[in-house]
């Protein structure tokens, strides 16, 4: 899967309460949730994000609540890939399970700035920062995780469990 988009960059420990505040969890519709994505730390995000854009975060991205509403809101906002230095574990498995592409790449995170254009080849695990002229190779997912991704998420994979 080929990805190309502009960077929205955040820091360490981006928690699920800022990705989608609990006060909006009285609905489960993806589009309604996405309208409030990131608003407590970046009110401009939802106005500026375009389909295909890339979210970049530091360590422990998606920490806190188990709310799947967080990756759902990010995905429905148009974000095609989240790159972080590390992911909190529930966010990690939720993203795999719902088919939101994620990659761990500390070097890319350090060098990326807001607005940089990033391309990624998910199956090869390669990220290119077009603006900076840099290329990064990420560690591939374990085979089992790759199978869930290839199946298009956990519900499609469930028949094999």
């Amino acid at each position: 899967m080929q990805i190309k988009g502009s960077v929205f960059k955040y820091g360490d420990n981006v928690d699920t309460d800022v990705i989608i505040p609990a006060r909006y969890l009285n609905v489960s519709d993806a589009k309604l949730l996405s309208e409030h994505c990131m608003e407590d730390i970046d009110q401009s995000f939802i106005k500026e994000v375009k389909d295909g854009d890339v979210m970049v975060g530091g360590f422990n991205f998606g920490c806190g609540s188990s709310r799947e509403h967080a990756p759902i809101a990010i995905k429905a906002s148009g974000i095609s890939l989240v790159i972080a230095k590390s992911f909190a574990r529930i966010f990690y498995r939720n993203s795999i399970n719902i088919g939101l592409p994620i990659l761990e790449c500390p070097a890319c995170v350090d060098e990326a700035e807001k607005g940089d254009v990033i391309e990624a080849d998910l199956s090869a695990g390669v990220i290119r920062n077009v603006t900076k002229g840099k290329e990064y190779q990420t560690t591939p997912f374990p085979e089992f995780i790759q199978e869930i991704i290839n199946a298009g998420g956990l519900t499609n994979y469930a028949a094999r469990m």
Partner: protein
Amino acid sequence: MGMTMTQKILAKKAGLSQVKADELVLVNLDLCMANDVTGPVAVNVFEKAGFSVKYPDKVCFVLDHFTPNKDIKSAQQCKQVREFAKKWNISKFFEGGCAGVEHAILPEKGIVKAGDAVIGADSHTCTYGALNAFSTGVGSTDMAVGMATGKAWMKVPRAHRFNLTGKFGKNTCGKDLILYIISKIGVDGALYGSMEFTGPGVGELTMDERFTIANMAIEAGAKNGIFPGDDKTEAYLKAAGCKDYSFVTPDDDAVYETTMDIDLSQVPQMVAFPHLPENGKTVQEAEAMHIKLDQVVIGSCTNGRYSDMEIAARVMDGKHVAPGVRCLIIPATPKIWTQCMENGLFKIFMDAGCIVSPPTCGPCLGGHMGILADGEKAISTTNRNFVGRMGHVESEVYLASPLVAATSALTGYITAPAE
């Protein structure tokens, strides 16, 4: 190679004689649970996939987050989960006057026992590690697939050992210990790992304290926290009506990525400052900063159990909450609520000018029943103090024990309890 407590449970539930850290396994679940916030997403995923519930007796829903229904949308979400539970004959369904905060009510009703493997679409599902069970928070899709297959995929966690010795000093408790640990290792200090509590100090901890500690394992990024079983665990499980359980013990040669030795007598009373649970200071340091409070919350899956209520009542007996402070008391389950009522705790709280709430997660996640305005500060016995967690994005939450929270309610400032 030896296994930890967590690894032994995962091996058994995966039908393997041995597992090792980082291995991916398919685990047969004893229970999967969700609430009124994560349940609707799970139901959507489940129905879209055309799944059927495989083991109705291994599914549980607790409507506790935005209940009693705070608005029409929340009522719709509860209705969706209620209808789903009815359709699939799910008897472990708790709402209204039968519901309490999920991670308090499940152990109380004997729904989780030692040796179990549990997933919950709520990050604080790790609470049940206090019972010598493996339990971890997952998302709604895992819940949906868990209901359909009775299984979940797990990466066997690496282990972090916390070797406890000694006894707490006066005024110090389990909440202080877990806030202290998180202040030392950080909010990702145990990322993807298990927190294994061992050593002679475990025996000094009450079951309620073990629930508090295991509950906040997620705040260090852990997959789970787990305690060994002992006489206290046995007594708790028997009282809850549990049968057919067995304790797991770590092998002597189990592999731990890190070991932290903690003498309980050296643990200070802690307050975690905004906006991360790792921002711990001692209560004496916090007191010196003269932090004026607008609200105090005593409750939640972390510290809403009867012993927490008792501690708060002892502090407030015959006294009054400081002017301008709203003090919310939220017993976590109907049973705890009834105990508070019958033992006269509510009289103490009401005379002290507190607000007594029905069991609910309510303000902990900024849902309802005590939301903060712009610039307001709260001290809370809950588990998270992220930006906007209890309300306005510019409000602040300080995390502490019931003793520190109740003491501070009386003065209106974060205050160290009298020695």
